[in-house]
């Protein structure tokens, strides 16, 4: 157990160091006006992105452990040579918020040491961790036909793969503790630029760290916190950019967001427009040219991911948007499958409803009712209580006005598209800054009673969020500390656990056929073929059901078949079939060896 933990921690330190090393390469693109905190946060976040991109490009040719080590070594050596860039970061510490932040990160780190569990409803198990495992096993990064989300922009997942290659299965899960730290750091840096002092910036970080809606999007495979860190980094660089090279750096960060999640394709052009437009002080032509530079840098940065999809899957955005799907042949999807996929996406994105009234009620619903749409306990009451005061108090600062405008754009786009709470984390970062600006202003103006009320509002925000957070992670904490409980959880919460144990432990099993689409292939350490994916992917046009697959089984070359009873289907292999020999059986699960004639 201890060896596993040390290995996971060591891998995380090494990858973080490599990310810093990659980040030093584009430090000249940062505006000189950046604070030291912002500079180091942007170096780390940008370096994380560049590391992922480099691994992705290299991985198209080779993605073995030695390739990963080689790329990481390049980053680590850069970090050593450029270590002077990180010297002199002295931050004034504000005790209470620093303790809150420390507790959240420590909680995330310890809980991250629990072995992964979950079924096909757990995003990490269904796709975020599947890609890294399969790519490393295959020694190359390729689309996984039965898993469409593995072909989404996968910059963070590629870093997960590097962590897995160097530190084992737990290393990617543990990384949430420092990737969340990156988001908190850049949000604090934005706060610093908006007029807060260093002590108040700690409150921004504490407020963010205890937002349930944010926290749930930052661990167990969720990549939304990293995505938000790229966006906040981009916004900070974009609003401070004065020279062309600064806009290249800004565009690079926008590209990293596009290489992480599809929603950035809509968000990035809007952010670029906001950051390029400088009001009356800039000529239209200058604004257009800086916007063009930033957009070009963004598209070049994200290019490899979309180009790979275009070449291998026939469409840069896979699966394509409904309007484009009519004109494209979408690999591994039937028309019905795509329709089901879109219906699922629309259902997930319904959130808090549409229409002007729903939009006006967002401040209320985001504060008090986010659990209604996977919001995980909301964002605390401080943003609602102080956000508008902060905006009013700091309105004279152009940076603050532009930040508010970008926040409005982010929330409007989110409202019009996919209303999943964790897609709004970058906006939560912005309103946390306004909340603390407002709290500061209110404290200065109010009397004793007012100050007490304000303190109470902040305390409630922190305490409520933190309590929910701890409550949700108690099982993980327990599993991290108790191997017997971890084993019990695996047995009870991993579907077909006994079968996976057999598959992974038997040397005669070389390739498995999973007939049921609900089987979480992540748990298989052996090569597998899954003709029907979770999101209605279909590998063979002429095989619409598991029974259509069985006559073709020899062409798929499995050594064994896992046949199960699930909510989707019953056993598929007929009893006493001469082609299959039953080698393992438990209630609702059977493993057959395939007899080749």
């Amino acid at each position, binding site marked *: 157990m201890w060896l596993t933990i040390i290995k996971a921690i060591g891998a995380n330190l090494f990858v973080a160091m490599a990310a810093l090393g990659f980040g030093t390469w584009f430090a000249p693109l940062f505006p000189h006006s950046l604070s030291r905190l912002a500079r180091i946060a942007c170096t780390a976040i940008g370096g994380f992105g560049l590391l992922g991109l480099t691994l992705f490009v290299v991985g198209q040719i080779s993605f073995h452990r030695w390739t990963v080590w080689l790329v990481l070594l390049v980053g680590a050596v850069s970090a050593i040579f450029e270590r002077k860039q990180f010297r002199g970061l002295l931050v004034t510490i504000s005790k209470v918020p620093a303790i809150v932040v420390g507790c959240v990160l420590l909680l995330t780190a310890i809980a991250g040491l629990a072995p992964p569990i979950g079924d096909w409803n757990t995003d990490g198990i269904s796709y975020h961790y599947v890609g890294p495992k399969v790519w490393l096993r295959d020694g190359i990064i390729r689309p996984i036909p039965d898993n469409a989300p593995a072909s989404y922009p996968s910059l963070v997942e590629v870093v997960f793969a590097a962590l897995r290659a160097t530190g084992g299965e737990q290393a990617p899960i543990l990384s949430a503790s420092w990737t969340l730290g990156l988001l908190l750091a850049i949000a604090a840096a934005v706060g610093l630029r908006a007029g807060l002092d260093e002590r108040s910036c700690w409150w921004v970080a504490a407020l963010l760290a205890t937002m349930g809606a944010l926290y749930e999007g930052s661990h167990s495979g969720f990549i939304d916190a990293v995505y938000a860190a790229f966006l906040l980094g981009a916004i900070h660089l974009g609003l401070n950019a004065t020279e062309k090279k600064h806009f290249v750096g800004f565009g690079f960060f926008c590209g990293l967001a596009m290489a992480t999640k599809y929603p950035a394709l809509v968000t990035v052009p809007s952010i670029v427009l906001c950051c390029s437009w400088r009001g009356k002080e800039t000529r239209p032509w200058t604004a257009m040219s800086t916007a063009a530079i930033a957009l070009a840098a963004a598209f070049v940065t994200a290019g490899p991911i979309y180009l790979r999809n275009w070449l291998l899957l026939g469409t840069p955005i896979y699966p394509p948007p409904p309007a484009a799907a009519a004109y494209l042949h979408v690999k591994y999807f039937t028309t019905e499958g795509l329709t089901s996929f879109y219906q699922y996406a629309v259902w997930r994105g319904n959130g*808090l*409803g549409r229409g002007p*009234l*729903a939009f006006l*009620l967002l401040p209320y*619903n985001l*504060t*008090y*009712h986010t659990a*209604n749409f996977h919001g995980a306990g*909301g964002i605390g*009451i401080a943003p*609602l*209580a*102080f956000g508008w*005061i902060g905006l009013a108090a700091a309105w004279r600062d152009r940076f603050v006005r532009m930040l508010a405008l970008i926040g409005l754009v982010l929330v409007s786009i989110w409202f019009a598209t996919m209303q999943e709470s964790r897609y709004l984390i970058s906006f939560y970062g912005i309103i946390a800054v306004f909340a603390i600006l407002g709290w500061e202003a*209110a404290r200065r*103006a*109010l*009397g004793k*009673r*007012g100050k007490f*009320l*304000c303190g*109470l*509002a902040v305390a*409630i925000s922190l305490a*409520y969020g933190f309590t929910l957070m701890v409550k949700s992670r108690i099982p993980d904490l327990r599993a991290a500390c108790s191997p017997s409980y971890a084993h019990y959880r695996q047995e009870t919460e991993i579907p077909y656990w006994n079968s996976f144990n057999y598959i992974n432990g038997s040397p005669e099993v070389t390739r498995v056929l999973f007939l049921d689409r609900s089987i979480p292939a992540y748990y298989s350490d052996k090569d597998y073929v899954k003709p029907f994916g979770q999101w209605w992917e279909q590998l063979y046009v002429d095989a619409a059901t598991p029974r259509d697959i069985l006559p073709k089984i020899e062409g798929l070359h499995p050594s064994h078949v896992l046949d199960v009873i699930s909510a989707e289907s019953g056993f598929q292999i007929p009893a006493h079939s001469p082609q299959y020999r039953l080698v393992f059986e438990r209630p609702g699960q059977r493993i057959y060896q395939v007899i080749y004639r």
Partner: protein
Amino acid sequence: MLTQDKPEHSINSRLPKKFFLVLVESWVFTTIVAFFVVRVLGSNLVSHWLNRIGAR
């Protein structure tokens, strides 16, 4: 300088500030009370009301 010493002007300039402070205090108080009503007491009344008017 003279105009600032006029009593009616000084009253007028204080009014918005005082009003603003009362507004801020009441607002913060309301958000706290709403938190206890909606989240702590677990009341579904507000949610039910919002559903009725079609906001969700």
